[in-house]
């Protein structure tokens, strides 16, 4: 069975791009969320195998959402998405339990590589 992915990003463009990358590689994108709170709610409902989590989102940040998800499901696999120059935030997320990260702008090959090893 294909792995099920939840995409979290406040930009529709990014969500679409990621969706295309994942679907093209045979993954199942089972949900999209545009903010942290929505992400947590969807996670509880859908129980995806992987969440791609944008760090910088209005109101409820990706790091806060990460913490909520891990509090609910400690084994959850959350992959952080960040822009260049946000290394300290990425590290904070990794410290708090994110499994790995990808850097925007996305290079499909790189994203898939990271996703594959996280899911393995």
């Amino acid at each position, binding site marked *: 069975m294909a792995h099920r992915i939840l995409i979290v990003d406040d930009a529709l463009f990014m969500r679409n791009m990621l969706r295309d990358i994942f679907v093209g590689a045979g993954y199942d994108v089972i949900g999209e969320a545009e903010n942290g709170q929505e992400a947590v709610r969807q996670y509880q409902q859908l129980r995806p195998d992987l969440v791609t989590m944008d760090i910088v989102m209005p109101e409820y940040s990706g790091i806060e959402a990460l913490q909520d998800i891990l509090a609910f499901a400690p084994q959850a696999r959350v992959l952080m998405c960040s822009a260049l120059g946000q290394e300290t935030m990425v*590290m904070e997320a*990794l410290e708090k339990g994110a499994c790995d*990260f990808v850097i925007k702008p996305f290079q499909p090959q790189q994203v898939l590589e990271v996703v594959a090893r996280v899911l393995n």
Partner: protein
Amino acid sequence: MDMTKYKAMFLSESREHLQKMATLLVEIEANPQNSASLDALFREAHSIKGMAASMGYQQTANLAHQLEDSLDHFRQLGQIDSATIDRLLAGTDLLARLLEDIHADRTERSTAAFLAVPIAAATQAAPIAAPISAATLPQTSEQQIRLSLHESIAAPGARLLVLLKQLESLGQILACQPEKNRILSGGNYRKLDVRLKTSVTGAEIKERLKVYSEISQLDIQEPKPPTALGAAMAGSTTVRIPTELLDRFIHLTGELMTNRYMLHSAAQQKNWLSLNEGLGQLARLVKNLHHQVLKVRMMPVETVTARLPRLVRDLARTSNKEIHLELEGSGIELDRAILEELTDPLVHMVRNAVDHGIEHRGTIVVRAWRQRDQVMLQVADNGRGMDPQALRRQAVNKGLITPAQAQIMRDYESFQLVCLPGFSTAPQVTATSGRGVGMDVVKAAVEKLGGVLHIESAPQQGTRMTLKLPLSVAILKALLVRVDEKLVAIPLTRVLQTLEIDSAQIQMSGKHRVFSHHEELLPLVSLRKILDLPNPQAALQISVVLTEAFGRKVGLVVDGFAGQREVFVQSLPAPLDHLKGLGGGTILGDGSIVFLLDIQGILERRRGGEPKV
């Protein structure tokens, strides 16, 4: 889980722990208040118990458990008495025999008889239920992981953190460079150096990290525990090699291949200049390779000296002497083949020091040190020493030398008399030194390795027995000599001097030819005669290799000298290996085979096995 694959590791580590226990017990006996040693002792027993139980060796685990329990009791008490140490040593002996059983795939012998008597009155451990919890832990080892990231990778700090997390999931991080906090605080790091305690192998870690394409360099190796090699030696002939060393081999092989092409093209173009240059390079590469390969064969002297504290302690107790043993230079490294051959000679020399050297109380020092490309191993005692006059008398009485020989014998030569078979200065046979094995066996063993035994002594000032050993047996320096148009090699360590003497200097002493050298009359032996070759034509100048056998200097007459060189000695295949006096063969640059002479053996052969010179 299939545990059989862990057996070798279990045995090697358990032997190591046992060895440490024996050493510690002897230490504690000398210093009963040393609580740190008691703690260490307890931990050793605990480790053995845990390993044995997880392997399912019930008797071994039970015994180790009992030892651990009683040690815990004494640890709380803060001291331990001598009688208990005897019992504990007996316990470690029994453990050693159990390990032998396991090694030989036999059923473990019963420990019931030993366990029936409590180690100390207050402690009686209940047999443990198997499997015990601590024991179900998988075998762990330490791995050193060094990695660097590609230059172009974004957010390298975060990447390192991800990798660190991955490693954490494999085991326990013992050390990390740079530290995690520093990575977190945002330093610009691209390298990570981690010591990991883990149950997975280096290859598995490598496999796990393979998916991280951002890693540009990865090096994983198991750090060499200082004594693990020694423990491994006791039972098997495997060695642990740092992967770093293997990398260097590959590197050198690569360079050799490059060199080969360079030589090839230089030869084709008849470019002598670059051919010469290439040959110079080849010489350097081969030397380097030799050096690296030697490292693999090297083991610390400790592997043979580690058992001495226990031995001396037991000998001292049975002979009612007070003996202090000091070990120096235990970290000096020697070829494993040499170390294996040294075990018995060393034990024998130490026994001699206890038996014949030290009268009531004294010190024995076993020290090792490097002297250029040789290793010196010395057993020194501050006991009664040897009296040259008494040695000469005894040798004459036993018919080993003639009174005339005794008269011209120097003091330093007289000490070598103890190496003659059938010579013993001990008025009676003692339990420790016994009869039969003597210094002659020690000397023969050392000389077989291409080494030399030196004995120095003075009455009331003790005795020093020094072994001068080559670093390695496989490659050694040899003197090539000509005899009847053939070349033979003599290990350089056996050559005291080469001489050209006038035939006029040769005198006859009875039936023997002798010559005067520094006012000493030394016997001359013809190598042609020994090898059953035709007599040479009479010459005015005679080439002599001054060597030493059976404690006496001997001049070996050869046709001429053909220089020194490093030779790679290969042992002779059967049935040639039965030929006495041949120590192996080597192939020279021109493809010819040259035999290596075993001086001691060849002179024995001359005497029909009767070693008198």
